[in-house]
């Protein structure tokens, strides 16, 4: 059993389709710590001690957010700036997160083909997520492939939301092979199975 913490950051939660569906789908998953950052810190006054304690207490840190202007909503950035202190997350004696996993669950408004050299976003989505990847690396954390949903304003989020719930319970029960997940580019609701360990005792396909 891995201890999973699910951070959610969306300032426009009430207008959201996909992220709201994901957040709702996450609720029934037991044994996972859930934090709605905008509800907990509506005035951006992040409690550093509390957040560091939370990080220490968990093995897998999952951030769910919509990609805004190639980055995270501002409160999550604030959270990162404040919580990942020198001497805690990095630098001298900054080894408290060593060996833990970071994973992102992001939604992008543009369709998948926009995130390529010919598309209007020009770069693959992973390129925009490199700041998070490097953040994990500097903190001696491992960075699993992000769970991604494109065209989030138009596509039906139901399957993606259900996949997200499966992902969470899979992480909790160590059914997700994170070493495999680390090697992937992006994960989608239909590719979670490819990084899952076969349930013990079940027959090989």
């Amino acid at each position: 059993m891995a201890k999973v913490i699910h951070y959610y950051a969306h300032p426009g939660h009430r207008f959201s389709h996909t992220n709201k569906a994901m957040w709702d789908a996450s609720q029934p998953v037991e044994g996972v710590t859930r934090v709605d950052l905008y509800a907990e810190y509506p005035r951006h006054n992040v409690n550093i001690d509390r957040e560091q304690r939370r990080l220490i207490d968990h093995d897998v840190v999952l951030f769910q957010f919509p990609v805004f202007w190639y980055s995270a909503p501002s409160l999550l950035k604030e959270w990162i700036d404040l919580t990942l202190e020198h001497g805690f997350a990095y630098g001298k004696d900054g080894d408290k997160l060593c060996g833990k996993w970071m994973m992102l669950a992001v939604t992008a408004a543009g369709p998948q083909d926009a995130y390529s050299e010919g598309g209007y976003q020009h770069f693959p989505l992973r390129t925009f997520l490199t700041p998070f990847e490097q953040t994990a690396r500097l903190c001696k954390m491992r960075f699993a492939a992000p769970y991604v949903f494109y065209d989030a304003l138009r596509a039906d989020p139901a399957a993606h939301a259900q996949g997200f719930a499966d992902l969470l319970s899979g992480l909790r029960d160590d059914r997700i092979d994170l070493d495999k997940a680390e090697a992937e580019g992006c994960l989608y609701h239909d590719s979670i199975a490819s990084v899952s360990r076969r349930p013990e005792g079940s027959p090989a396909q």
Partner: protein
Amino acid sequence: MTDFLVLAFVFLAAGVVAVPIASRLGLGSVLGYLIAGVAISPILAALQVDVVAIQHFAEFGVVMMLFLVGLELEPKMLWQMRHRLLGLGGLQVGVTTALVMGVAMVFGLSWSVALACGLVLALSSTAIVLQTLNEKGLMKSDGGQASFSVLLFQDIAVIPMLALIPLLALPELADVGGHVVAGHGAESVAEAAHGETHGEDHGGGHGMNINLVENLPAWQAALATIAAIAGVIMGGAYLTTPVFRFVEMANLRELFVATALLFVIGIALLMTLVGLSPALGTFLAGVVLANSEYRHELESDIDPFRGLLLGLFFMTVGAAVNFGLLFGSFGTFLGLTLGLMAIKSAVLFGLARIFKLKGGDKYLFGLGLAQAGEFGFVLLSFTVANNVLPPVVADQLLLVVALSMMLTPLLFIFHEKVILPRMAGETEQEPDEIDETGQIIIAGHGRFGGVVNRMMRAAGYSTTVLDHSSVQLERLRRFGVKVFFGDATRPDLLHAAGLREARLLVVAIDQRDAATELVRHVRHEHPKLGIVARAVDRHHVYELYAAGATHIVRDTFDSAVRAGRSAYEELGMHAFDAEMLAQAFVDDDKATLLTLASVYDPKIPAYENEEYLEKLKEVASQRDDILSGNGKAFHVRTDRGWTPPSREDLDAEQEADKT
């Protein structure tokens, strides 16, 4: 009655005319008063006014000044000053006396006369020097502190001098002394001094001037003296608060003034009764009260009296100059005066070197104390009465003392205009130690001012709190907060609390109009001071804005907004949405406030201001829309931040992208 009115009118008019002109010309108030005194001296002579009698009365200003100085000086600071007090002061008095005595003997005076001259001339003028130092803001400088040490020592030294002088009596003067006084008394103002001598107390000249201890054996006298000093200290420490609490019940402004005067006069009287210097006694009482919550109240009550009496004193010094005698042998007197000042200066510069005063401070000390002082007048009349000095010598010395006092303001001007500019480079290398950082004055310490005070202190700022409720203050003092009793709406009290050096004023008093008046007054006096003011409602905001407050905070608005936000959350709204909505509400309200402020006229009540009412209706209907949920006025602003583009827009964009 008419006599009194004429006299009062002459002195007041002279002061009112001369001092502003002198200040404008950069000469300082002391020189202004002195010149005013010289100017009215013919009138006073024509009216046959006993100037010296007035001068003795006005000397009480010095007593009050020392009381105020004491209030500024905590016992701890006085203790820290002890080396300078004894070292600087003792050497100054001792060496100057010896040198003046030597010179006098060279001029052929007998040793006892010469010694008396030395003692008289060694003293400097507390009145002029402290007044000028305060006026120029030099009191806290190193030179100012050294000067103060010397002056304080001199005030103490007067007591043994008064004991010593009768021992120097010349037997040959004993027979003629009384005769001379009678003969000259009415003719010249300077000689009139002799009619006012302390010495005549023995003959019963003054019914009021009683000395309780003089007929007692020495040990009893000493005991009485110690008891009196202990009484002042104990009374100051333990009686002030109950007495002021008692007076507070009447809730009358003038009763506080009366109480403050009663304190000072009572102490002065007690000191006189046991044969001590009243100035010293009140100084001691001031030091004892320096930590009291009533310090600023006492300060602001006594200060006008001190100012008026000192002004009167300086004018009498100017008026008492015997011009007949002076112009009779002008060169001699000028030479004597300059010679005296040179000797005193030389001693002071020597001491400055020993006590390591630097730069501008050295010159301030060396030049500032070079005059003889008002205690010189007292000692002179005393010496004549005790047959120590021949009246002829005393007359001449009186003139020298007065002249040296009149030259002092010129020396201060010289120091300021010539020495300081040259020292500028030197002092830059050694910046003055800053004793006190800029203060934050919090007027009113109720629930509102209390929070502000706690926040200031939490951030490490030092605050001065004024409140007129002693119950409130009592509670605070238990928490170790520095609080002072007094009505914060009184400008004089604010000044006593250090408004001039303050960096911020927080107006947190309950009374709405008093708060506005306070802001208006302070803004007028201090155009650059930051003023944070508490408003009770919307109209008060406009009034405070017009009065010149920098920041205006409605006392219940922010908390009401927070309550509204909590209500949103309780109704199930997402905390971030509640926050955004609350912020939008605040912005909207602020915009309304500004709209209405533009048509608000403090001269017309709001309900009679047509334009204001019109605007109010307009704004109110908008607000009703919001409240009834119809309006989008501030929903638009909150929604647009995170609203994604619509599906139709997205489809259209994609179409456009393809073509």
